[in-house]
C-alpha cells in the first residue's frame, strides 16, 4: 500500500552549521495520527518543514508516493497542509477571508470554488462568520483555528501541525484538540503537550537532538517514565479524570 510519508536517512544542517536532523527515518501510513514529541530544539519543526519542501536536506522524503523535489512541489504543497507554530506567521493577510482564500487561489481554483472552500474550511474550524475580521483582533485560540482553516481550504490529505496547543488556556486547548480529533486526514503533530498527544495520536515518535530515539504506541511510550525523563519530557498527569475519555466529555 502507498504510504503517506516515507522519510529515509534524512539529515539537515542550518546554514549556521547547527545540525538539526541526523539520519531520521520515519514511515507514516495513510490515515495514521502520529505525534512527534521531544524537547525544545529537538528538530520537530525542522522535520515538518521537510514534508512540503520548504527545507530540503540530504536523504529521501516521499509524500503520498511523490518524492519531494522541484517538479512535484506544487502538487505536494496542495496535498500536505502545514500549520506553523505561531499563527502570527501563518496569518499574513489583512483579513481572514484573504488568508483562508490564499491557498485555494494559488492552487488555481475558480472564484466560485475559492469562496466555497473558504466557507467550508471556516465552518470546519468553527470560525464561520469571522471572515471579514483582521487577524490582529482574534484571540490566540481563534488565531489557531483560522490557521488550521487556511490549510483545510486547500483540501490536504496530510496535516502537519506544529505545536497546535501551545499558548492556549485549558478550554481553548481542549477545543482545539477536539477540532483536530474530528479531522479525518493523516496527521503529524509536533508537540510537547503529551496530554494532547495521548488524546489525538495512536503512535508517538520521540525526537531528541535531531534523532529518532523511540517510535511506538503512544500508550506504551507515555507510560515509560524514565524514557520520557531522559529526553526532557514529563508524562501527563493521570489523576483528576483527565484521561482518554475526557475528550468525549467536553
Amino acid at each position, binding site marked *: 500500500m502507498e504510504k503517506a510519508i516515507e522519510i529515509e536517512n534524512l539529515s539537515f544542517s542550518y546554514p549556521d552549521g547547527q545540525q538539526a536532523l541526523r539520519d531520521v527515518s520515519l514511515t507514516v501510513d495513510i490515515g495514521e495520527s502520529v505525534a512527534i514529541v521531544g524537547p525544545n530544539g529537538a528538530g520537530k519543526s525542522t522535520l515538518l518543514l521537510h514534508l512540503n519542501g520548504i527545507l530540503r536536506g540530504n536523504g529521501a522524503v516521499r509524500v503520498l508516493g511523490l518524492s519531494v523535489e522541484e517538479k512535484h512541489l506544487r502538487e505536494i504543497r496542495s496535498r500536505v497542509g502545514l500549520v506553523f507554530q505561531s499563527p502570527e*506567521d501563518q496569518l499574513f493577510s489583512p483579513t481572514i477571508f*484573504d488568508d483562508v482564500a490564499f491557498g485555494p487561489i494559488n492552487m488555481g481554483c475558480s472564484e466560485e470554488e475559492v*469562496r466555497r472552500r473558504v466557507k467550508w474550511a471556516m465552518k470546519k474550524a468553527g470560525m464561520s462568520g469571522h471572515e471579514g475580521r483582521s487577524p490582529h483582533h482574534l484571540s490566540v485560540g481563534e488565531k489557531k483555528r483560522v490557521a488550521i482553516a487556511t*490549510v483545510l481550504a*486547500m483540501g490536504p490529505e496530510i496535516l502537519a501541525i506544529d505545536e497546535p496547543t501551545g499558548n492556549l488556556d485549558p478550554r481553548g486547548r481542549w477545543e482545539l484538540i477536539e477540532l483536530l480529533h474530528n479531522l479525518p486526514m493523516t496527521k503529524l503533530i509536533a508537540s510537547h503537550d503529551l496530554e494532547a498527544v495521548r488524546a489525538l495520536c495512536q503512535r508517538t515518535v520521540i525526537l531528541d537532538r535531531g534523532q529518532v530515539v523511540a517510535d511506538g504506541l503512544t500508550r506504551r511510550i507515555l507510560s515509560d517514565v524514565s524514557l520520557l525523563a531522559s529526553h526532557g519530557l514529563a508524562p501527563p498527569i493521570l489523576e483528576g479524570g483527565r484521561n482518554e475519555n475526557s475528550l468525549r466529555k467536553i
Partner: protein
Amino acid sequence: MKHGFIDKYSDLDSFVHRLDPRTKILATLAFIFAVMVTPPLPCHTFALYLALIVALALLAKLPILYVLKRSSVVLPFVLMMAAFLPFYKEGEVAGSYNVWLWQLSVTYGGLVVLWNALAKSWLSALSMVLLSSTTRFPDLLKGLERLGVPKVMVMILSFMYRYIFVLADEAMRLQRAKDSRGVATLRPYGGGWAWQAKTIGNMVGTLFVRTYERSERACGAMVARGFDGHIHTLSDLRFGRADLCFGVAFLLSLALIALSQH
C-alpha cells in the same frame, strides 16, 4: 493588546461607507487636485471645501471632532516648513519687527503663501482622514489594486497593516522587560543620555532581527500554501448606482466651488 486602528470608524455603516472604495479614492484625489489648483484668495472657497468635507463626514456619521483632531496632525509639519515664508517673500510690508540686530518684516504676499500652504495641506489631510475612516483598510487596498497600483506596493501596504501592531506589541514588551529590570529607576534621570541611547539602540536592533526572522517564517507559510511569487487576489468590488450618483454629485460640487471664485 488592542490598538486604535488606522481605519478607526471604518466599520460604521452609512451611505459613504457603502460606496465602492475606488469611487472614494478617485473622489479624494479629485478633491485634493481641486484644492491644489485653487488660488489662495478669496478665502471663502476654502470654507466651501471645508463645508463639503464636513457634510460628508456628517453623512458618514463620523464624530466631527475626531476628524478635525486626526487631520490636524499635519499642521505642525506644515508650520515648521512654511513658518519662515512670510519673512522671505518680497512685496508690500504688513509689519516690521526689530529683533536685536536684525530687522524682520512680514509681507502680505508672504502671509498669503503661508495661508495657502496651511489651508491646502489641512484640507487634503481632512479628505484623507475622511477616506480612511469610511473605508476599511483591506478594501482600500483592493481599490488601489484595481485602480492599477502595482501589486508589490499593495502587498507591502497590506503587510504593514497586518504586522504594524504585532510589531508595536513586540516593542512594548521589550520596553516593559527593560523597565521591569529596574535600570531606568535605579539611575538618576534614567541613566544618562548616552546610556539611554545605547539601550534604545539595542532594542531597535533586537526588533529588527525579530522582524526579519518573522518575515522569513511568514514567507515559509506563504510558500507552504503554494505561493509562487505571483500575487493573486479575489475582488468583490462592484460599481453601483450609488457610486455613479455620488461621483456626479461630488464632481458637480467641486465644479460649483471652482465657479464661485469668479
